[in-house]
């Protein structure tokens, strides 16, 4: 049987943050954000990472986005390894973080054209693509020229999704993209992600707190707790493994952590 080509191969990935504390910084403290995690994501698959705050989800996304270096282990993205081939990887990934980070005084148009030009897309083409994506996300065109700080959180997040998709990336890294969104905006984003996967075969790595979102979007889910990938499988497999009716109970059963309880956050 042929195994499908892998978009992400993470092997024994470790990340530690060292900080100097105390008077004159003489005390060195170590906090392990990732304690040797391994997983693969096949091309065209949507893979979810579920875990409470401080479990290492954002650190993982940042490493895959080339924003953090690896302390141990290997990461391969579409056949390219980190950190050696990070320039190629940067060109082929789109990322959406939990906070829609923009130049708040600039309009959506100006922010998106800036992002497009950074990736070498001509202004007109970037504008055409941006409008098409925003229409799909049900954002009114007239908001395109408004400063970002005048738009709601939901609208800002839709523009963040547009920015990530502007380059038509084969891999999307989504770090809690729907946290804090109203139900309508959340549904718009989720529907669009489903369509992307179906129509373009985009690979998606999604971190989330939202069990329903994970069940709806992800073919497979990994439970991340205290920097370790505790369990992995489809939602049904995980529930079966834990002997529970729902995914939240499965998470509690398999990790020993209550989902609403944040772990002590590792400051990366």
């Amino acid at each position, binding site marked *: 049987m042929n195994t499908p080509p892998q978009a992400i191969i993470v092997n024994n990935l470790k990340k530690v943050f*060292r900080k100097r504390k105390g008077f004159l910084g003489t005390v060195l403290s170590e906090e392990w954000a990732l304690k040797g995690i391994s997983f693969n994501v096949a091309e065209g698959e949507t893979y979810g990472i579920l875990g409470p705050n401080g479990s290492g989800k954002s650190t993982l996304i940042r490493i895959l986005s*080339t924003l953090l*270096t690896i302390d141990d282990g290997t990461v391969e993205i579409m056949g390219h390894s980190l950190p050696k081939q990070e320039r190629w990887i940067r060109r082929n990934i789109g990322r959406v973080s939990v*906070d829609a*980070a923009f*130049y*708040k*005084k600039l309009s959506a148009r100006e922010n998106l054209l800036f992002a497009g030009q*950074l*990736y070498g897309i001509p202004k007109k083409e970037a504008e055409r693509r941006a409008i098409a994506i925003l229409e799909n996300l049900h954002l009114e065109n007239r908001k395109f020229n408004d400063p970002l700080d005048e738009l709601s959180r939901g609208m800002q997040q839709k523009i963040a999704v547009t920015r990530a998709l502007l380059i038509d990336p084969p891999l999307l890294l989504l770090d809690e993209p729907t946290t804090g969104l109203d139900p309508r905006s959340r549904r718009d984003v989720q529907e669009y992600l489903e369509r992307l996967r179906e129509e373009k075969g985009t690979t998606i790595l999604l971190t989330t707190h939202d069990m329903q979102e994970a069940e709806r979007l992800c073919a497979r889910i990994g439970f991340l707790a205290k920097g370790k990938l505790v369990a992995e499988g489809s939602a049904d497999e995980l529930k079966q493994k834990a002997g529970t009716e729902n995914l939240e109970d499965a998470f509690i059963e398999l990790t020993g952590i209550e989902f609403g309880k944040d772990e002590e956050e590792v400051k990366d």
Partner: protein
Amino acid sequence: MLTKIFRPLWAFVFRDFHLTRRYIHWEVVNLFYAMVSSATVALIGVASKDFRLTLRLTLGVLLWNFLSSLFHEIANSISYERWEGTLEYTFMAPVSRLQHLLGVSSYASVYALLRSFVVLGGLYLFIPMTLRGANMAGVVLVIAIGGLAFMGLGLMAAVLPLMSPERGASATEIFQGVLLLVSGVYYPVEVLPSWIRPLSVISPAKYALDACRKLMGTDNPASTNGHLAGASLSSVTPLLLVLALMGIILIPAGLYVFGVAEKWAKKTGKLKRTG
């Protein structure tokens, strides 16, 4: 190929232009303040009825306006991205740091130049000045070459907010303050206490000011209130060479230091919004 190199570089010019446009009311306020503070310094010369002192101070405020604005824009480009929370997105774009910093520096140069022209226009309202006889073409050349050295210093200072999100921006202000103190912008560096005077040797602003004063004839006994005896370009060649050498050393050094700091920031997680 050229488009591939210049489009990302142009993206930073595009972004910074629109940011200036969106914050235009603050730009106007800052410009007004720069104009007024420049005039108050230059008027000290008018009050003492000394045209040489007036010219010296006027040249000082104008050159400092240009160089400090250039330095400030480049040095604070990282702090600004931290405040907005966009730093990670800029650093994960497939853009070389050379393209990134050249883009920022290109806009900063044009911005600083235009700003200095506006301040000059404002000064004309307060200070009776003649530039007849001054070697203005030479002055422009000195400013251009001196600007390169200041770009290099700006790149080095931009590293500070990268390394320390909380204290880095304050450190760049101190860096700029020390430059102002030791460069002899308004006074000869000889009046500085001996313990701090050696620092003036490494300030590009000192050489730029010395060259400009010669080219304008500020200290030339042959200069009069109505006609300046500006020096020829050849008489400031050694100063130009020092400035060019500083630019040649400081720009690559700034890029190198930035690269090292970026690696360190990626190891320690300092690129994150709040660090």
